[in-house]
């Protein structure tokens, strides 16, 4: 009977047209208006709280945001019409919150970093548009995985070069060319994930082969350990030479997560965690920068700069609903504008606000993973999952460090923290996510239905 019903339904004219999936561009526009509104609200709220007046340039500020959001929206309409509608609004909101907090710290410190950051955001949005225009199909990124891997490594090593390398606060992760500082590891992050995804598409079958079975877990074969060992050693090398934990955690963590996604074997996660613990222990013994980080984590109040302690004080002062924007003392936290912007936001927006921010990150990551689930080609799946999980890892490492869940390590809070290289590269990352989600949601090219009225009633007249 049910078959007959299906047949009947096939014949009904209303269902003859293929189902057109929702593109969601209207939803995106509405959410973008919302996001621009919140960004402006935050900016005005900062001045109201700190100075008691509405900022004179509030309209110009809103105009800039609206222009960035509108332009990006139009480009998505043209170049990626099926893209996920919530990615761009989330990113705009996060940028707006970060800029408002930088503006707030500027008022306290009498600096002008928010304007610089706004310029970086414009540049990032420009690069976003460029990427969407030139990467029309993500699969072209899969062509040269080894070249991408090499580029990523070179970018990681660049800060160690004698002339252009440059260290800030003991971490050798900067290059300086003609007065412009740049953190190449932010670019390396994206390039390396492209390389990992391309490499794993080729070799995941070998990596998924099971070796010996040990306490219910299939261990990989010893000969397949090469790639993970190479990445592990690279990560350790970065850690020892550049004195910075963040990038190495991010590099190794993303690689382990990608291997796990590619092979579906939990043993890689266990192995990765063990190697990470071993590496952390070795680094604690050997690397000058790592030991104090651990000590500060365990005893934050012994620190002469009181960075983590001030962050904790700030979070506690903020409480559940915060002091209100412009009304706390986030400038008492050293370097609140970059690494500790999470604590500054937590103080002024409280647990409620910080939770909302973390949720926005979680939603962004979930959209990336969703695209990975829906995408039809293995490279796209791995790339989307890799980009999303690197974002997740980065947010976890930074906010975990700020809230003293784990030792603090030098990574930037995506979209929020001061720093041009991080902001620009994260816009590029988002452009790739948009491209991938567009490919995921685009309806598959279907063959014409086997039975259609026109096809069968065609009669060849032999006259």
């Amino acid at each position, binding site marked *: 009977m049910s078959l007959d019903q299906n047949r009947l339904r096939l014949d009904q004219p209303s269902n003859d047209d293929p189902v057109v999936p929702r593109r969601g561009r209207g939803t995106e526009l509405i959410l973008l208006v919302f996001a621009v*509104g919140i960004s402006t609200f935050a900016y005005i709220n900062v001045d109201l709280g700190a100075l008691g007046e509405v900022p004179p340039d509030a309209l110009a500020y809103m105009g800039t945001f609206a222009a960035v959001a509108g332009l990006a929206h139009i480009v998505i309409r043209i170049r990626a019409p099926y893209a996920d509608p919530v990615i761009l609004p989330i990113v705009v909101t996060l940028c707006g919150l970060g800029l408002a907090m930088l503006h707030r710290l500027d008022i306290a410190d009498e600096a002008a970093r928010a304007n610089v950051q706004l310029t970086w955001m414009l540049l990032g949005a420009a690069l976003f548009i460029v990427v969407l225009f030139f990467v029309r199909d993500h699969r072209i990124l899969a062509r040269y995985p080894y070249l991408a891997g090499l580029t990523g490594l070179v970018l990681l090593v660049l800060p160690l070069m004698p002339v252009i390398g440059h260290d800030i606060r003991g971490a050798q992760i900067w290059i300086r060319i003609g007065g412009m500082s740049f953190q190449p590891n932010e670019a390396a992050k994206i390039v390396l994930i492209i390389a990992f995804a391309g490499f794993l598409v080729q070799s995941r079958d070998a990596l998924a082969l099971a070796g010996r079975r040990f306490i219910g877990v299939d261990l990989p074969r010893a000969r397949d350990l090469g790639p993970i060992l190479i990445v592990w050693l690279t990560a350790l090398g970065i850690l020892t030479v550049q004195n910075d934990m963040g990038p190495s955690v991010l590099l190794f963590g993303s690689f382990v997560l990608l291997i796990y996604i590619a092979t579906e074997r939990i043993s890689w996660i266990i192995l990765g965690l063990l190697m990470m613990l071993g590496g952390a222990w070795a680094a604690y013994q050997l690397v000058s920068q790592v030991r104090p980080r651990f000590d500060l984590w365990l005893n934050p109040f012994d620190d002469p700069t009181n960075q983590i302690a001030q962050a904790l004080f700030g979070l506690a002062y903020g409480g559940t609903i915060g002091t209100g924007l412009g009304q706390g003392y986030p400038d008492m936290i050293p370097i609140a504008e970059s690494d500790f912007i999470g604590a500054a936001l937590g103080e002024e927006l409280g647990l409620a606000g910080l939770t*909302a921010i973390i949720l926005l990150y979680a939603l962004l990551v979930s959209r990336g993973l969703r695209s990975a689930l829906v995408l039809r080609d293995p490279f796209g799946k791995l790339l989307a999952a890799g980009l999303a999980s690197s974002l997740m890892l980065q947010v976890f490492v930074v906010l975990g460090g700020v809230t003293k869940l784990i030792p603090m390590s030098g990574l930037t809070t995506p979209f929020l923290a001061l720093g041009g290289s991080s902001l620009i590269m994260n816009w590029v990352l988002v452009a790739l996510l948009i491209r991938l989600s567009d490919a995921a949601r685009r309806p598959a090219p279907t063959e014409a239905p086997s*039975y259609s009225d026109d096809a069968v009633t065609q009669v060849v007249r032999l006259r």
Partner: protein
Amino acid sequence: MSELTLTVIKLGFLAVLWLLVLSVTSAMRADLFGVRPPKPPKPSREAARQAKQPRNGKGFPARAVIIEGPDTGRTVPLEGAPVTFGRGDDCTMPLADEYISTQHARLRFHEGQWYVEDLGSTNGTYVGNDRLTRSTPVSVKSRFRLGKTVVELRK
């Protein structure tokens, strides 16, 4: 700025921030519960009246019965939707007759009248002795033949 105003603004900001989180979540709801298929276009009142007629009206056939051929005795209800006859599995009325085509003929209801039409079959569809070349109106007790099968419309 009074203390009270600032508190109201603070709470307002948090509320708006959470409203954004919720609206983003509700925009994603489609992934969890699936997208509703687009609604069929609403039929105009005239068309709706006509579409109803075959069920209640007097002179309209309610079913097609096979009275000759290998499938003798089988019936198919006529409810307004087109009914196809043929050897193919995707027909409304799949038939076992070897002399008919995969998609052979179709009964179609249009503006208050049932029509039978040939779907480009090899051996043709006949009403009486005439091979169909176009849609032909049929009513109760009409018969048409495809291959060795004869179909009669009944109330």
